[in-house]
């Protein structure tokens, strides 16, 4: 697998599959061909703009710990495909802003966020979807879920600015706490309450990734 350290403010990834480490606070990332990224973040601050070239595809798998302040803009022109997945485990005030601009036609975009907040933290997730007028054939999906633990609070603000009528848009936002039924189930197998809770939390954060290695690594980190 490839590993790349990005320390310039403009960078192009073409036909790439691997881990990236972003060492700048502001970045313009150009995506060409078929790109799969994994990124591990901790306590970071990033202003990222992703520009999708025509006929490109991007699968972005991010996992974040502790507190962060991230602003991500994804620009899609035509015939591109983006799957953006981010799981966050925060114990300090954090912000995640994702803006997906659909500027052309026949794009697919899927934004998936899972967040678990702890202690007294406040997390705000701002997800904006902007589909330009007169575009067609676009399919956009947002799936944003939060799990509030202890005294923390999650706010998810989904915003769909859809100026075109030729778009398939779908969004799902839920904020809740761990299901008592699930806890009962696991405890009835002999798990302690704390371990049952931990398993459910980790499961919530990892189940969005298809990559088993990624799942395993997150489990290891959280442990």
């Amino acid at each position, binding site marked *: 697998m490839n590993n790349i350290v990005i320390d310039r403010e403009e960078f192009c990834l073409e036909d790439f599959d691997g881990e990236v480490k972003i060492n700048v606070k502001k970045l313009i990332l150009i995506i060409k061909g078929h790109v799969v990224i994994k990124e591990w973040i901790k306590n970071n601050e990033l202003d990222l703009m992703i520009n999708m070239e025509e006929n490109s595809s991007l699968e972005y798998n991010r996992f974040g710990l502790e507190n962060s302040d991230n602003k991500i803009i994804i620009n899609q022109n035509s015939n591109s495909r983006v799957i953006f997945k981010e799981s966050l485990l925060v114990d300090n005030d954090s912000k995640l802003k994702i803006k997906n601009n659909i500027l052309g036609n026949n794009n697919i975009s899927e934004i998936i966020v899972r967040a678990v907040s702890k202690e007294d933290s406040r997390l705000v997730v701002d997800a904006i979807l902007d589909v330009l007028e007169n575009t067609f054939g676009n399919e956009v999906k947002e799936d944003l879920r939060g799990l509030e633990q202890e005294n923390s609070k999650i706010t998810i603000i989904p915003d769909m600015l859809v100026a075109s009528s030729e778009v398939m848009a779908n969004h799902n936002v839920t904020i809740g706490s761990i299901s*008592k*039924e*699930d806890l*009962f*189930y*696991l*405890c*009835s*197998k*002999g*798990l*302690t*309450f704390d*371990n049952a809770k931990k*398993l*459910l939390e*980790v*499961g*919530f*954060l*990892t*189940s969005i990734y298809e990559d088993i290695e990624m799942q395993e690594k997150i489990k290891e980190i959280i442990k």
Partner: protein
Amino acid sequence: MLQIKNLTASVERKKIINGLDLEINDSEIHVLMGPNGVGKSTICKILLKDENYTISSGVIIFNGTKINDLNTTEVARLGIYLVNQNPIGIEGVTNAEMLRTALSDITGERVGIFEFNKKLENICKELDIPKEFIHREINVGMSGGERKKNELMHLWMLEPKFIILDELDSGLDVDALKVVSESINKYYEKFKPSILIITHHNKILEYIKPHKVHVLKDGKIIKSGDITLAKEIENSGFTAF
């Protein structure tokens, strides 16, 4: 093994169980029957100390320990195991993860991966389920019958002393019912647990031979007998009681 004495319990302030007495000795297989909504599954939840169900009077004693004030983890560790009527799916948690955590929680020791996997693979074979189930999310995307088998996979790993089968037979095709019953019989031969079977049908009782049959109505056991009582119910229903 289990003694329930004069138990009264409710859910959502509704009294469901009212003066229930039930005694199940070591290695006995009992059957509990009764009309829909009478409280059979409620008894299961009470035994597993589901917080939604409150005991207002009476005692439940399991192997000499009063379990009224224990929590779910504690009763599970005493060896009480429930196969739920409709096992729920647990997103993001695999069978293997749950079982490994449960076993190390219970024994306080790390679980040897090699032995663990080998044992699970054998269990899957016996239960006629693909070994891929081991690393699947618990009951997620599984059919009703597969879920029941999946719950039996857990049972074989956790080795409980008292097993409650809440409508194990519901949703199973003829072959699956046979596989599952054989698995229970095999477990019985090996560990000699006590078993409480909740069912509406006699078919499962052709495979698993019970020692006693009880009828639950109006919150308590109104009649007990042997297997002929189950046949009587199948022929003439509950109206006679």
